[in-house]
């Protein structure tokens, strides 16, 4: 699961401490609060929880406005963790941070690239593991070495590739991977790269083939995969097939690991191994949010309480969920709800035998918010509402991962079809077309 904020740290042992296979941190978060994250890993997750630090090197190739924050006086400055990260990474990153985006030609000198790669890998290997090894809890009770506490893998520097820039960045990514493998200091670590591409890339088979060919020729141990803003619920069949074509190539005869950094149930199914192969070896997301993410942050938006409907494998706005369940007469009593909607421990705890308590998934506070030149009153989910929705989501996600890896291909496809059959009379087919797309695409593998 992807670590977002410290407020969410208690969910990394929810529903139980063995639920998650690993944690992914962004390097800026590591830079911002290394002691807190080291303590979190040592004390609030299971022992020796695998973790990966995403070095976030792509952050420096975008317009500097992406990595700056406005101060109270109206001027802008580079966000402190990003600036510190740039200082650690050195080279052109440090030189240009906040003034101009780095370009492929800035890494043309192999010595510059080698130093950059070294700094990026060293940061990942040591920044948290040193603090973890030095922690009181480790010294007193665990006595793990820094080597024991190193990340699951080190991620070579990488950059975001579009249809028009992949030919410029891909050679740098490939070289960075090759150089990563040359350092004795990191020879005990798995070396991954992160393949971050636009949706246009996965729509172009030739480009996907070229990327796969060049990366197959490296000795990478695995890849992180992130398609910019890909929403599995809105993606067409061509995009879904493109995602699987890219991941299949990266898997290189299913010998290498590929972790989708932002995936939903489609990716979970594709990774479950029931459709001939595991097209992904891991699927990550945040606690409730993060099944899709744009490469360049576009702001948080207004948090809306959403209820994950298990049969639809999708988060649905509370008012829509209520409309669906009401129409289907599933809100008449608790047993009917448990039978038809959800029987997870969180739903049982929230509803507690009294169906009127389903409203607790949608309680909001209303606040006037400036909108344009006027005001509107907007509903914000309460802390309790958010927690109920999040815990329900995590309960169902745990079930989904187990379901996808233990059920037969037919059972998995039937389950998707059931979602359509049960909801189509209230939602219409357009709303559910993603389930049909998933069935069609997965059936062809």
């Amino acid at each position, binding site marked *: 699961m992807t670590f977002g904020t410290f407020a969410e740290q208690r969910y990394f042992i929810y529903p139980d401490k063995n639920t998650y296979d690993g944690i992914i941190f962004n390097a800026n978060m590591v830079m911002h609060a290394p002691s807190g994250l080291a303590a979190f890993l040592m004390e609030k997750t299971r022992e020796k929880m695998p973790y990966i630090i995403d070095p976030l090197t792509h952050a420096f190739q975008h317009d500097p406005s992406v990595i700056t924050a406005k101060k109270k006086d109206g001027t802008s400055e580079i966000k402190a963790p990003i600036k510190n990260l740039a200082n650690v990474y050195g080279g052109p990153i440090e030189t240009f941070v906040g003034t101009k985006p780095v370009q492929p030609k800035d890494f043309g000198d192999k010595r510059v690239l080698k130093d950059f790669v070294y700094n990026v890998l060293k940061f990942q290997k040591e920044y948290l593991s040193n603090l973890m090894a030095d922690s009181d809890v480790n010294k007193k009770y665990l006595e793990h070495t820094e080597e024991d506490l190193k990340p699951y893998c080190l991620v070579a520097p990488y950059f975001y590739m579009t249809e028009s820039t992949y030919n410029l960045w891909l050679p740098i990514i490939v070289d960075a991977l090759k150089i990563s493998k040359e350092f004795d200091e990191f020879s005990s670590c798995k070396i991954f790269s992160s393949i971050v591409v636009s949706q246009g890339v996965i729509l172009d088979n030739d480009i996907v083939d070229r990327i796969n060919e060049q990366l197959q020729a490296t000795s990478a141990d695995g890849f992180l995969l992130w398609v910019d803003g890909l929403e599995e619920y809105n993606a067409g069949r061509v995009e879904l097939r493109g995602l699987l074509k890219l991941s299949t190539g990266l898997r290189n005869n299913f010998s290498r690991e590929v972790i989708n950094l932002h995936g939903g149930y489609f990716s979970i199914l594709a990774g479950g191994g029931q459709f001939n192969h595991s097209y992904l070896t891991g699927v990550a997301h945040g606690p409730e949010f993060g099944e899709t993410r744009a490469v360049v942050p576009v702001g948080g938006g207004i948090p809306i309480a959403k209820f994950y409907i298990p049969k639809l494998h999708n988060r649905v*706005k509370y008012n829509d969920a209520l409309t669906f369940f009401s129409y289907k007469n599933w809100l008449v009593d608790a047993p009917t709800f448990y039978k038809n909607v959800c029987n997870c421990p969180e739903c049982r705890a929230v509803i507690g035998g009294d169906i*009127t308590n389903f409203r607790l998934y*949608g*309680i909001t506070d209303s606040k*006037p918010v400036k909108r344009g*030149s006027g005001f509107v*009153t907007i*509903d914000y989910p309460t802390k309790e509402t958010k927690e109920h929705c999040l815990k329900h989501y995590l309960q169902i996600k745990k079930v989904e991962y187990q379901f996808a890896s233990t059920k037969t291909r037919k059972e998995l496809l039937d389950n998707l079809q059931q979602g359509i059959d049960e909801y189509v009379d209230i939602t219409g087919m357009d709303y559910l077309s993603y389930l049909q797309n998933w069935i069609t695409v997965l059936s062809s593998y």
Partner: protein
Amino acid sequence: MNKTLTKSQVEKVDGKLLEYSVVKHISAYLKNLDYDILHEVPNMGQSVDIVGKKGRWLTFIEVKIHNWNRAFEQCKTHELVADFIFIGIATKKVSEQLIIKAREKGYGIIHFNPDNGLCEFIVKPSLNKKVWLPQREVLLSKIQNIKKYGCPTLDDVWNIR
């Protein structure tokens, strides 16, 4: 609307009627019929243009100056809490399709005539029987709080001086 308007400016901009004006006229009409009126009441992530309370009955009105199809989407959520649902419209002529669709759904239509400034019930709504009472209780408590602590007035909402 991006700029602040005076009351005299507000009725029309560039010859086009504003939703604010229609909300204002329909609200006044309902007030005359003894409805207790609230504006922009938040309800499950949406904001209801006009809520009219009369005795124990709750009436929701979604106002549209165009694209009345969008009102039907919004009204779907209102079915969980409102006794009566109206679409408020200010077109010169009320579309026959709108009337048919509203009747199918059991929604009413209030028409504001921009030429003479008069409001009129075009279609009577049916009593909505799809209310989910626990959610209605949540809304009623929210309305009580709004009345107790105040909420932005229509002029605040539209930033009218």
